[in-house]
């Protein structure tokens, strides 16, 4: 296999007008299976002799396990096996720095719903009934329910690692002389915001089936976004060679980040299948999905921003206090993400960020669509609306003045590629008729505008390694068949269609001509997973490289047959021909046979590694990306002044996509983001019930059900007017950037800004509910600040900041008060006493 050179992206196959597949609205390759109900999700898998698993979960938010007696459950008719923590004692976790989970809690439960034991039985009902026969003796520990309580309660510790007490992680970064920046400001704005936690709510509940293969190896089918990381976790906990484990990521019925961690139930059924030598299945209830969680972190934020009279930002200081829940999950990355992308939309010349994540006795938070950047984006965009009002500048114009430009390097050393934020703003201003509406609509009616940026793939993998982030293999058979193998996981976002479309475009085929094997660790090369909006750019570029290599072989063989120079060979409409005389050619099938006769069996590979980031400082691993997407949105609201009732009739949104590989899917992702954003803006809450402390230590999820956890339905959707801004980005395959996450981000702040335009009150937290609007209106009536939101940010002992001079202050990407990390790209010494994994600051 040839060495990979620079990323192969951005080289369109011929000029734009020649594209036959890319850029055309097409039926996705998996549409037929999905609409006819033939897609096999994990729960659709049923195997002979299959047993069923149920998990006994902790009823206590925080307790020690003194003892577990499983004898009565084991004796229950129909029960095959009962597992406890002793059977799976090895700790695991998605990040190398927080290996803090056990498949079944050994001696410490940390939230209601933490699994303690597993019953595997002939019937699911039997397994459920036997759960009640397990006797667990608990010693109750103090309940820690929120970050302020965690800061004030260093013991008992929820984990025996982390920065201090119940503080998981504290970070502090400073880019340039921030105090000087504030001194140069004409106005300084200080605002506190709160972003409530919420969950992914995929329609498909997590399910897994594991079986011991006839040769003794393990196979697991599971609803996961990250089969490769699960593969590693299974090998670690089960202490099996990875080569003896096969993970098959079944098509996911939605993921949104909620299926990106290795989960306890996956490890449990794998273990049970090995012990019993029969297939074992688990399908979580909706309530259990709420306990897996890994959703949006609740974040309290304080923004201090200095601006000149013309609106340009002189400095920004952001503090975040993050409710992490009971485990690490992606939390260290999430913490950095709350401070990462503030610099990527508008020019921020000096920037200080301090973030603190605490442990609490609630289901663990993690990555949800927009991972860690959604909360501070809300604060930043609402604060900009306040700044614009004070400076008497239209909020759209303010943003146009300060928008970042293409190819900039930010204060925190993120290298931007194409930036079409301004064009996005201009588009929504026009389509929404902004100039005629803003501050001009009748009382109760309002419009709000907000913007965002998001990464197109995380620049670093979860664990330190120098290998590619994605690989694709192509196999060609004599019938003209093209088969694609890749670890990428179809979670509904359309990744299979992306891969098929790229290969089809290069080879002049139709997407339905390509056979795909994806998300299977036995069959395809590694792709790191469907997270961080990375699949289109990374697996897409790998597919592009593999297809181009195959094309070169086939073209050479056909050129020889046609006796024409190889440069003149074209691939289109399932033919390979002389571009100067299109009649002179062969079918694609004949072309493959010619190539096989010439070169032997035809198979090619491609792979992709993101470019190196100039952010060399510790913590600089979170946020770099090959390129960033940009979005602007205008939301219109109607607010009833008597009840506070909010309706959203219309939303206009423009997204900088680079190039839409399949515009139908891109629009679907934009509309899906709008839907999810509206849920977060108006109603979704991962809320907990603390019973009166005198009577109970209980801390329970208030409504772990799809009925009472309120999320909008299709009937609740407003009209959405989507525009795509297309300037092909040199980093993306055919110029494509991400769309899976970015369009979510502007919705929540745009709603808040629209509410202010409608009725003159600021709701500085989400969800924005009628109750909060009424409270803010009451404040307004009483002559106080017309606002609802948090009033203070608690004291946190921040560590000394790593000081990184920005590029315009002569910085080289390193912190001046830390050891230089210039050689980060060089392989670290794996045999040193410290493990390189522990030092790696991780991204997702």
């Amino acid at each position, binding site marked *: 296999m040839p060495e990979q050179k620079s990323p192969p992206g951005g080289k369109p196959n011929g000029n734009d007008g020649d594209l036959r597949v890319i850029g055309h609205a097409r039926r996705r390759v998996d549409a037929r299976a999905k609409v006819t109900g033939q897609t096999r999700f994990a729960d659709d898998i049923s195997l002979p002799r299959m047993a069923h698993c149920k998990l006994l979960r902790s009823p206590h938010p925080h307790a020690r396990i003194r003892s577990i007696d499983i004898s009565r459950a084991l004796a229950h008719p129909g029960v095959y096996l009962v597992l406890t923590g002793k059977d799976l004692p090895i700790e695991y976790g998605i990040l190398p720095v927080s290996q803090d989970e056990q498949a079944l809690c050994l001696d410490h439960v940390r939230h209601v719903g933490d699994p303690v034991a597993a019953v595997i039985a002939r019937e699911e009902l039997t397994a459920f009934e036997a759960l009640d026969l397990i006797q667990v003796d608990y010693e109750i520990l103090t309940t820690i329910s929120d970050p302020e309580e965690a800061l004030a309660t260093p013991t008992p510790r929820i984990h025996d690692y982390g920065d201090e007490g119940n503080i998981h992680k504290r970070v502090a970064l400073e880019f340039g002389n921030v105090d000087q920046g504030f001194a140069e400001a004409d106005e300084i704005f200080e605002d506190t915001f709160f972003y409530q936690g919420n969950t992914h709510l995929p329609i498909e509940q997590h399910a897994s089936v594991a079986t011991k293969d006839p040769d003794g190896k393990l196979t697991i089918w599971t609803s996961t976004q990250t089969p490769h990381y699960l593969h590693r976790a299974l090998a670690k906990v089960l202490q099996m060679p990875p080569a003896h484990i096969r993970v098959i990521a079944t098509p996911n019925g939605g993921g949104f980040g909620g299926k990106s961690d290795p989960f306890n139930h996956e490890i449990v059924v794998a273990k049970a299948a090995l012990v019993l030598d029969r297939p074992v299945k688990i399908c979580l209830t909706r309530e259990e999905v709420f306990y897996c969680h890994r959703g949006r972190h609740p974040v309290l934020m304080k923004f201090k921003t200095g601006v000149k009279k013309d609106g340009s930002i002189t400095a920004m200081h952001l503090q975040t206090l993050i409710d992490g829940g009971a485990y690490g999950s992606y939390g260290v990355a999430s913490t950095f993400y709350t401070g990462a992308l503030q610099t990527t939309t508008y020019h921020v010349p000096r920037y200080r960020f301090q973030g603190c994540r605490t442990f609490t006795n609630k289901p663990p938070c993690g990555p949800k669509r927009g991972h860690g950047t959604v909360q501070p984006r809300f604060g930043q965009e609402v604060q900009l609306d306040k700044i614009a009002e004070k400076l008497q500048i239209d909020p759209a114009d303010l943003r146009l003045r300060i928008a970042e430009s293409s190819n900039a390097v930010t204060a925190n050393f993120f290298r931007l590629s194409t930036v079409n934020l301004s064009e996005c703003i201009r588009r929504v201003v026009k389509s929404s008729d902004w100039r005629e509406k803003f501050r001009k609509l009748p009382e109760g009616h309002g419009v709000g505008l907000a913007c965002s940026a998001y990464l197109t793939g995380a620049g670093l993998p979860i664990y330190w390694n120098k290998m590619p982030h994605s690989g694709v293999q192509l196999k060609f058979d004599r019938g003209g068949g093209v088969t694609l193998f890749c670890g990428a996981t179809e979670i509904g976002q359309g990744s299979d269609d992306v891969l098929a479309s790229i290969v089809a475009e290069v080879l002049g085929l139709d997407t339905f001509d390509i056979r795909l094997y994806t998300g299977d660790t036995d069959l395809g090369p590694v792709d790191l997973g469907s997270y961080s909006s990375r699949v289109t750019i990374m697996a897409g570029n790998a597919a592009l490289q593999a297809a181009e290599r195959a094309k070169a072989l086939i073209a050479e063989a056909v050129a020889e047959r046609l006796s024409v120079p190889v440069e003149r060979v074209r691939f289109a409409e399932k033919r390979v021909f002389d571009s100067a005389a299109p009649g002179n050619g062969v079918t694609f099938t004949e072309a493959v046979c010619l190539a096989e006769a010439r070169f032997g069996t035809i198979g090619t590979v491609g792979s992709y590694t993101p470019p190196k980031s100039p952010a060399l400082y510790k913590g600089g691993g979170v946020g770099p990306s090959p390129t960033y997407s940009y979005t602007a949105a205008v939301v219109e609201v109607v607010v009833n002044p008597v009840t506070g009732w909010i309706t959203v009739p219309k939303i206009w949104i423009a997204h900088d996509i680079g190039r839409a590989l399949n515009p139908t899917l891109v629009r679907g992702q934009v509309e899906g983001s709008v839907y999810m954003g509206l849920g977060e803006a108006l109603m979704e809450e991962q809320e907990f019930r603390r019973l009166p402390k005198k009577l109970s230590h209980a801390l329970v999820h208030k409504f772990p059900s799809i009925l009472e956890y309120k999320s909008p339905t299709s*009937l609740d959707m407003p009209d959405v007017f989507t525009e795509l801004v297309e300037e092909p980005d040199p980093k993306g395959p055919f110029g494509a950037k991400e769309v899976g996450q970015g369009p979510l981000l502007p919705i929540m702040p745009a709603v808040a800004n629209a509410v202010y335009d409608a009725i003159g009150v600021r709701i500085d937290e989400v969800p924005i509910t009628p109750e909060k609007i009424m409270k803010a209106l009451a404040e307004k009536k009483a002559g106080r600040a017309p606002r609802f939101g948090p009033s203070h940010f608690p004291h946190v002992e921040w560590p000394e900041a790593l000081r990184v001079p920005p590029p315009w202050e002569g910085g080289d990407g390193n912190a001046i008060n830390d050891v230089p990390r210039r050689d980060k790209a060089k392989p670290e010494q794996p045999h040193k006493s410290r493990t390189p994994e522990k030092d790696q600051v991780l991204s997702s």
Partner: protein
Amino acid sequence: MMRLPLFAFRAPRTLDEAARILHGEGPDAMPLAGGTDLLPNMKRRQQVPHTLLSLRQIDALRAMRFAELGARLGACLTLSDIASDSRFRNGATALAQAAAQVATPHIRNMATLGGNLCLDTRCNYYDQSYEWRKAINFCMKKDGVTCWVAPSSPKCMAVSSTDTAPALMALGARVRLVSQSGEREISLTDLYNNDGMNYLHRKPDEILAEVLLDSLHDWCSTYWKLRRRGSFDFPVLSVAAAARFGKSGAIEVARIVIGSAASRPLVAEEAAKFLVGRSLTAETIAEAAALAARIAKPLDNTDFDMSWRKKVTAEFVTYALRELRGDDVSAERAAITRMPSI
């Protein structure tokens, strides 16, 4: 996934046979109509009946008869049957509006009128799985001793969440209850009891067989429902109002019922009395709305903040009375229900 517990299943073909079985099985048996509420509750072990007595095979319970003097509605008519029938317009509009706003189309195709009238009271300390309820050491309504909504309360505070009951109470409906020993007819208002556990004055061996309505000629009525989403939520406040106007435009008789603000639908008697003999001016409506809202006592066991639910009650009564007066309130209704008007 969640599994149903095991149970015996009986499916009689006549009401007599059903009454006999229910009597014989005792309180461990429960009638099963559409099952849209009972079966999910059973999966959560909120109810664990030994026997389910299906009413689906009994044709008499699906009859709908209209006569000059009124209507008789079989208890097993589905909510879709009611919502789509044009005879429930004008005088009985409130019933059609209420039925049309229950849950989703799929559920309305299964759920019945009788089932909705007998709907178990709801509470977000109670409508939870067995494991969840274990984590709060259960509650008074099932397996526990404390009402967590109001820990010092001697009675359960679960909330009446039926949509059709407030509407039918406003329409002056009666119900026919049949048991092995005989049958009785009571006003629907008297069926309910303000106790979250014993919320029905139905004996365990009685089957709610029919709903009876007097002629609603000359009446007009309306139903307003508060819920988070227009697509499928239970009510967390509702207002049903019905009135007969005299020739002068003054009200001759009125009934206002507030739903989902206590363990039973509440009759706003003072407000109704106040309206008699008056025309619906803005001042009259405001006074009546204030009187009606006074009786609503929402607690912290449903969606939305309880003080806000209390605060908006008068506004909902105002919407209802304005609609009875003939105002075009379709914009308000569309904003709240996110549905086309009936």
